[in-house]
């Protein structure tokens, strides 16, 4: 058979064909996007609908009850958006921490040899995994609002703390920055603990004698922050909530919208995480555990040294998806008046300005950025728990 020459050689070259196909697909995609964009802008001009991003700097006229940065109704839509994004991050972060702790606990308890505990956890998992989240969020919210007493009959355990269906009112220090001593004490404790552990390991290698590392670590990492908290508390002047005409004034309030969305997200996602954890633990082959037992390792050591490191390998990737789900699901807060991104931006801002395309695009970009950042972080963490390969 003669060798192909000239043009036909390129026509049948796999690499050339691949390149041509890819250029065609990308070109087609660009053309489609261009068609949509030009069609939409045409439509906006014809319909007399305003466009552009100038609206971001206009006064929003909207104030919200939960904000991590200063905001008043004279502040701009951009500031309102920032308030919403920070609130999204706040509920997501708290939700992720609680969901992770709860999910690991339930997932492990599901494997317990205690029949009642295992079945209860199983029932919880099946319950939350099989109902729609919107229903779950609304149910939590209206249960909290309807079950807690109204303002006039507020519950108070003393110490200036009040609980009613408008929230949990707690005293607030004049200078919250004093309490930065608490995480600082924790960090200091952790560093000392790390040094003690190294010293203890070296001594064991040298002399074979043990050292109560756990107890010392507990004292360092819990006792030091506790002492710092007590010190900061004593030094502060406390703003105690007092009953005003319509509300409590002073102190700080944890509103039911916030509690409901955090609790709903955490319990809902915990159901999924529990299943991931159970799957990860069951993925560690039984032979590994038997081998560890044969070596004489204790039960706790088997979990810590053999089971958990191998289970994490199977747990971390699907766990990332659950974290991303939780962040996106925090948008359900809009339905119970929690001022997160969707509520303040796709809700209030969109209806006031009507600039649907810009607002939807900004919102998409924000969720995308948050999700990609979390993914990157989790992938980085995954490199540590993955089995090292050469």
């Amino acid at each position, binding site marked *: 058979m003669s060798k192909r020459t000239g043009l036909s050689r390129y026509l049948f070259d796999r690499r050339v064909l691949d390149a041509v196909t890819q250029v065609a697909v990308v070109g087609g995609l660009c053309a489609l996007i261009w068609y949509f964009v030009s069609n939409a802008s045409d439509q906006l001009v014809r319909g007399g609908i305003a466009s552009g991003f100038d609206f971001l700097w206009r006064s929003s006229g*909207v104030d919200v009850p939960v904000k991590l940065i200063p905001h008043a109704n004279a502040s701009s839509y951009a500031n309102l958006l920032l308030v919403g994004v920070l609130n999204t991050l706040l509920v997501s972060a708290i939700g992720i921490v609680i969901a992770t702790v709860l999910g690991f606990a339930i997932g492990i308890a599901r494997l317990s040899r205690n029949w009642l505990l295992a079945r209860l956890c199983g029932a919880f998992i099946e319950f939350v995994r099989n109902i729609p989240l*919107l229903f779950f969020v609304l149910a939590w919210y209206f249960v909290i609002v309807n079950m807690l007493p109204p303002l006039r009959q507020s519950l108070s355990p003393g110490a200036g703390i009040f609980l009613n269906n408008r929230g949990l009112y707690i005293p607030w220090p004049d200078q919250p920055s004093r309490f930065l001593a608490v995480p600082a004490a924790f960090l200091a404790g952790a560093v000392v603990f790390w040094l003690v552990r190294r010293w203890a390991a070296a001594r064991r290698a040298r002399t074979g004698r043990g050292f109560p590392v756990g107890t010392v670590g507990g004292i360092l990492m819990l006792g030091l922050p506790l002492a710092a908290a007590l010190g900061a508390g004593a030094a502060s002047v406390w703003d105690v909530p007092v009953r005003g*005409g319509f509300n409590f004034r002073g102190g700080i309030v944890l509103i039911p919208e916030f509690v409901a969305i955090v609790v709903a997200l955490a319990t809902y996602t915990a159901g999924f995480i529990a299943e991931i954890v159970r799957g990860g633990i069951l993925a560690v082959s039984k032979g590994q555990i038997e081998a560890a037992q044969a070596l004489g390792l204790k039960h706790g050591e088997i979990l810590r040294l053999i089971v958990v490191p191998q289970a994490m390998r199977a747990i971390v990737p699907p766990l990332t998806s659950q974290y991303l789900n939780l962040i996106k699901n925090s948008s359900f807060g*809009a339905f119970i008046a929690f001022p997160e991104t969707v509520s303040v931006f796709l809700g209030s801002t969109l209806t*006031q300005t*009507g600039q649907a395309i810009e607002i939807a695009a900004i919102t998409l970009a924000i969720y995308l950025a948050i999700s990609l950042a979390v993914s990157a972080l989790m992938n980085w963490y995954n490199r540590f728990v993955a089995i090292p390969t050469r």
Partner: protein
Amino acid sequence: MRFATPLIAGALLAALFNAPAPSLAQAPAAQPAAPSVPRPTLDAVRARGHLECGVHLGLPGFSFADNTGNWTGIDVDLCRAIAAAIFGDATKVRYTPTSVQQRWAVLTSNQVDLLSRNSTITFSRDVTLGLDFVGINFYEGQTFIVRRASGVNSVRQMDGATICVAAGSTEERQVQDYFQENNMRLTVINFQRNEDAVAAYDAERCDAYTAGLGALAGQRQRLRAPDQHVILQETISNDPQGPVVRQGDAHWGDLVRWVLNGMIAAEAFGITSQNVEQQRASSRNAEVRRMLGAEGNFGQMLGLSNDWLFNAIKQVGNYGESFERTVGMQSPLRLERGRNQLWLRGGILFTPPFQ
């Protein structure tokens, strides 16, 4: 349960992208009688065989579906009158319930022919949203509903109150502006859906729920114990509400505007659903004769038949009949006519002449 907001936004985005422009929906040479005036919306309504009307999700007295799916209310009556004017049949309407957040997108993406859902006319909505407000069928004023036990009987007593409101409504902004102007503090809890805001108020999450006077009269019916709540009679705003159409079809705006004007004029001339036949046959008033098609061809000028208003009034009634039946003394809302009375009788409802 309705879709989540992100879904709505997505759908809305898709709708904006995909919707054909109003002028493209035009069927060429459908109305050879007046080729100079393009009537894309009327042509589309005729071709479809019914009117698509965007209404409220459920507000007694304004637009509310009973348990048999039958819509009633003063806003619904306007849709029925327009259908009667076009088709001679007030039942040829399909209602699309729309939320506060969805409504403009539902209209601008051609899913409905008009919105008749107690929406307040404002500068920025009119100027930047691609909408045309073509009349006023209800002069609303924002006020508050509070628990009788709270002892509040004036807005000025509400310093420090917590107030439930629908996100994106004019009320959301107005209440904050008003409190700031009067140096009073408030906490606003803004819900995506009116009904959740009302439910939260009912559960004592808020001290007050704010909306228009008429809307509150309707929403009060849905509270657990309606008589334990009072609606403050003072209003903090002026909210003229009326039908909304898309910008770009001037003819359709004219049609909606003059059906509404016709209902108001009919009340002024004493034309009712009971006596409309007799009025057409024997009225000596030239304006009445023109309105009802006994003289001139006003209907044809709008691309309709000359008995357009006759049908609307015969089947739906004049403005006063509609008002009394839906929100007035014959309804559970028992609203006074107030400003929604004819200019002849001390109100501010007014209609230009049919000349």
